[in-house]
């Protein structure tokens, strides 16, 4: 299991995966909007998406878990 955490406070602009998806290391998982910038966030390792904890438009804080991956 791996938790993908948000590296900064911001608003979720786009979620690019759904539960059940297989993701590769380096694949873009979601896009955050913070300080007028769009920041794509990637998987640091591969796995299967178990849970997506956020919706587009949600405010997340630094350190919040956004996506849970299963090995």
């Amino acid at each position, binding site marked *: 299991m791996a938790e993908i955490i948000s*590296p*900064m*406070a*911001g*608003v979720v602009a786009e979620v690019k995966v759904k539960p059940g998806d297989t993701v590769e290391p380096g694949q873009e998982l979601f896009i955050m*909007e*913070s*300080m*007028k*910038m769009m*920041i794509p966030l990637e998987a640091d390792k591969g796995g299967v998406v178990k849970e997506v904890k956020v919706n587009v438009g949600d405010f997340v804080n*630094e350190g919040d878990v956004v996506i849970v991956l299963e090995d």
Partner: protein
Amino acid sequence: MFSKVLIANRGEIACRVIRACKELGIKTVAVYSEADKEALHVKMADEAYLIGPPPAAQSYLNMDKIIEVAKNAGAEAIHPGYGFLAENSTFIRKVQEAGLVFIGPNPEAVEAMGSKIEARQTMQKAGVPVVPGTTEGISDLEEAKRIANEIGYPVMVKASAGGGGIGMQIAKNDAELEQAFKMCQMRAKAYFGDPTLYIEKYIEQPRHIEIQVLADKHGNVIHVNERECSIQRRHQKVIEESPSVVVTPELREKMGEAAKRAAEAINYDNAGTVEFLVDKDLNFYFLEMNTRIQVEHPVTEMTTGIDLVQWQIKIAAGEELTLKQEDVKINGHAIECRIYAEDPDKNFMPSPGTITKLVWPEYEWLRIDHGVYEGFTVTPFYDPMIAKMIAWGKDREEARLRMIEALKNTVIEGVKTNIPFHLEALQHPLFIEGKTYTSFISDMKK
């Protein structure tokens, strides 16, 4: 003169405008979003009103709400700062229809500069040089060659529908043009569904140099020297200075006259900035006009002693510009560093958070415009600029060394800032030699 002004902005520029109002004996009204309840501009103003939730679209861009607050508070005028509603002609008209004064130019002038193509044509008619090239799309290679030879190589081939650098290529001769033309046509068709291309002169070693203008409602127009703002990342300026190392008194006069013609051509009536690209042979070309106060206005104020924000207010109130062109002098040199809450080690990634420690240095040659304090939380809702530090020196080298000293004596903890980047840039040989092209940040890394 007005007795009360509403400032439709936040952060350092709202604080800057409040200061100018206080100096003119004008009462101030701040507006703020739920994210900015504790913001410095709210504390500094005589009155402050909540206008909506954090997202700008529901607060700082809510035209009707802002106008309603202004009327209820008894403000006679609205200063928009920069960004948000500063260059929105619909807002200007709404302000005027509500019987209030907009502290900025008339809406027609804003519209005249709002469309790039229209602005380019207006400038050409007014005798302001523009980047040579085609204004209408071309689809024929032979025609492309004829035009390229007319304006002179190197040229840039661009997709009409393009953006983000896709479908853009440089050509140095007929053979390269042939290749570039075919390639761009193919890409333009694939990406944008439109193969139309246009050609413009490729500007080598471009610098971004802009001219400040002041125009009143009585037909008086002056220019207030240049600012060099070539150091940019993501098309956002990071370090600005005045004067520019490459601008001679003769070039200043030529660019200044062109900027005045630009302002006159659109009946401009406030502070504004005409941006030019300057090439390695010091030819200059109109880029765009910013019909508002600029972030980097302090470098002009520090080297001329002219308070641009006070003049914005006085001009909007109908006062006549008492400064004449010959009153505008240059005293020394000023460098501005924009302090962004971002991490220079992580590709300038945003770094919102609470400022746990803040120590600003104090010198008589240093000006700091900011909107933060120790304990203040920088939220992710607005742009990352938290402060501007501006150092003055009798010449560029003194200003540079002082800026370094000031940055080294600044302590900001809790959020990451780009201060390490500034220190690296200011001590880089390219900066010291004045080789500040728009490619500076990538040149620095070579």
